[in-house]
């Protein structure tokens, strides 16, 4: 039988992959992708918990996370486009102009 732990472990692995992406990449677009990966990992965990505890709350949270992800992408991409127009690049190393 597939238990809750199986799903949670898969979710954890995917989350860590997303984390590796966030750590590794310097391109803003790729960072967005990595963020999506992490959000989806969490969604899996929510859906699994909802299923195994027979409770709808987990699914509700997953819905709201999807909604937030959608708005984040809409605004984030808009900003990316503006940034790209201004700098001609999406590499964080090129955008570092706040050196303390």
């Amino acid at each position, binding site marked *: 039988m597939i238990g809750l732990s199986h799903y949670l472990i898969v979710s954890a692995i995917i989350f860590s*992959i997303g*984390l*590796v*992406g966030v750590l590794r990449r310097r391109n803003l677009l790729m960072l967005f992708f990595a963020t999506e990966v992490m959000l989806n990992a969490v969604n899996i965990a929510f859906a699994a918990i909802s299923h195994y*505890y027979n*409770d709808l709350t987990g699914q509700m949270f997953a819905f709201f996370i999807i909604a937030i992800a959608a708005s984040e992408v*809409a605004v984030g991409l*808009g900003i990316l486009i503006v940034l790209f127009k201004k700098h001609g690049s999406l590499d964080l190393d090129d955008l570092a102009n706040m050196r303390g």
Partner: protein
Amino acid sequence: MFENFIASIMTIEGAAFYVFSILTIGLFSITVMSKNVLYAMTSLAAAMVLISGFFFILGADFLGVVQLVVYVGAIMALYSFAMMFFDATKDIKEKTTSNSLVFLLGGLSALVLVLMFAAPIYSENIQALYPMHEGVGNAQDVGMVLFTKYLIPFEVAAVMLLVAMIAGIILAGKKMDESLTEDMSADDEILIIKDEK
């Protein structure tokens, strides 16, 4: 342990879980590692579809559909359109962070999370707050809860999406040939108002 694995893989549900897991993990790894944006995005989209498969296995039909519609349909479409502004065919040249740190942190977090989740969870005293109903479709069940208990968050989310939409349009759409931050017209308008006074 191994027998369990064999036994679980023999069921349809188990087989589907393992297939989906391996494929999602692989596709997401490509997303994160790939140098080509196009590959990354394609694998991301494919992984999203597979994740909706997880949802279907878990009986969250409505959530699976939403995942397909919103993520694969809308968000990925947004990405692909956005990508048109950037040069997508070129490989991304970036200085990646040193691998040792990345894998240390990623591996450590994976290890810790897996350890935590693999440990037995004491769930006897957890009570379902909004239990699912027998013989009622998932979509109906979700609708009942969403429009009663979660109505206000739902409406707020709707407003948030509207705001995000407007923001996206303004950021990406208005006077796309001009820089937003170097816009001098605002100053001109102020000067005009002053002159009128």
